[in-house]
């Protein structure tokens, strides 16, 4: 009976690989994580610009926004890490903290200019 068949497992599929519907099915928590990383890179970049082009309101505004965005998402993880907010509110936390972030940007910006 035993005739030789060569069977090969396909290497594991990776997240999103060959998956046309993955992006639209990505949950908000994952986006929060991705955007926090992106904002981190943006901060580094804008910091460079901020030093090169001093006192450019556009750069300053972008830097402020991105820093606060990044901070607010970091705050979310801290709150969840230490169980200060129940994990079941993780999505509400994103919305709530985003609003807080916008308010902070507005206050700081109008405070400066």
């Amino acid at each position: 009976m035993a005739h030789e068949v060569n069977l090969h497992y396909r290497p594991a599929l990776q997240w999103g690989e060959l998956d046309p519907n993955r992006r639209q099915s990505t949950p908000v928590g994952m986006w929060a994580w991705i955007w926090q990383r992106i904002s981190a890179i943006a901060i580094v970049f804008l910091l460079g610009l901020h030093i090169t082009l001093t006192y450019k309101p556009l750069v300053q505004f972008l830097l402020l926004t991105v820093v606060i965005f990044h901070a607010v998402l970091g705050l979310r993880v801290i709150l969840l890490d230490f169980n200060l907010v129940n994990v079941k509110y993780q999505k509400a936390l994103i919305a709530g903290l985003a609003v807080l972030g916008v308010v902070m940007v507005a206050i700081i910006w109008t405070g400066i200019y």
Partner: protein
Amino acid sequence: MATSAHQRRVIQVFRYDPTRGGDGHYDRFEMDVAHPNSTTMLDILIRIQREQDPSVAFRYACRVNMCGSCGMVINGREGLACKTNVCDLPPDRDITLRPLNHFPVVKDLVVDMTPFFKKYEDAMPFFSPRTIEPEPAVIPPDARERQDIGLATECIQCGCCVSSCSMVNYHDGYAGPAALNRAFTLLADSREGRNAERLRAVLQSCYNCRTEFNCTEVCPKELSPTRAIKYIQRLALKHLGELSRPAGMTNATEEPAPPVAVVPFEPVLQHAGCVAGACSVAAAGGLPDDPSRRQFFRRVIMGIGAASALGVGGLLATAAVGPTLTKTPGRWIPISPMDDLAPAQVSTVTMRYEVTSGFHKETVVKPVMICRRADVNNMVVFNTTCTHLGCTVRWDAGKNIYVCACHGGQFDHEGRVIAGPPPRPLDTYRFKVENGCLMVEVV
């Protein structure tokens, strides 16, 4: 919810033939679904197999969300085929069925779950009682630990969470959400005897979690491995002292571990040694991966890191060190026509000039005090910056002294300190007169 009315649906099923290999592709099937509200993906697959293509491979057993064998990626999100109804998926789009991520594909929708159970085992998923009691332990339903553990013991090992967690891809040694959730149910259990060991076995993994909540979103049993992971992290924080001690640590719930618990114990070290692709999980039947893809990502990330560090470092260095390295030659700034400066008097004149420091360009506006004596050529130009802490000094004509308002520093007409904290006389500028105009030298 969509209607229960009859729908015509297109189903794209991932196909992989192990005798041929390759990347895999999607096959398109079309069918009428009479009751979208009560037709599951599993029903669809069974129909495809019976009516259209008998070679489609998928796994199932219980058909009622209990066995965990039918986990797959449905429309881009992990779920049980037997729990996902046609009406749950948007009617205007094709349905895609694809095997779970992070597991080798055996055929079509069937994956090899070996890595899952290997990691599950590493997390010590079994109960080993602290003491052997003849009677069952009584944990009241409202006990803290009972509440903490909640339904987390309901996991059916479907692998959905592990598939959804992108960190499983990036960290070879990562135990993954299901194993950590299991470890949590035991770590929180006061009857358990080997928690010290277990905590050490899983702790490293807990730091691979990035709080993405993908696992929580997809778990068909509505468990939250994220919550479990956070719990373990906090537990570790509480037992930081014991954890940093190399061995013989006391139990996580404060009692010494029974002697049977002394088993050689390495996993944490193993994982720590798991540097950049040199890990042997693949060889041990664990996660196979695509080294070129992984390496590529690693390189891209390291590249971005290095470029950012260089960029910022360079900018900061130029800004901070640059100005001190280039010895700027003194510049002569015109102050005032000599005729405007009354003899035998101190006049204060504001001077203005531009300085460039690093990337900054700024205009300095600063008063200087010109003290002209009766003898026209005898003149001193004082710097108004107080030698104490840098406030602006002004001339008090009534008292014939220079005073600093900040901390009461006083200087006589020659600039020597007569009162207050300033440590040395007022600084003076070098000056010259050119075409009847007074110029001072700034550096």
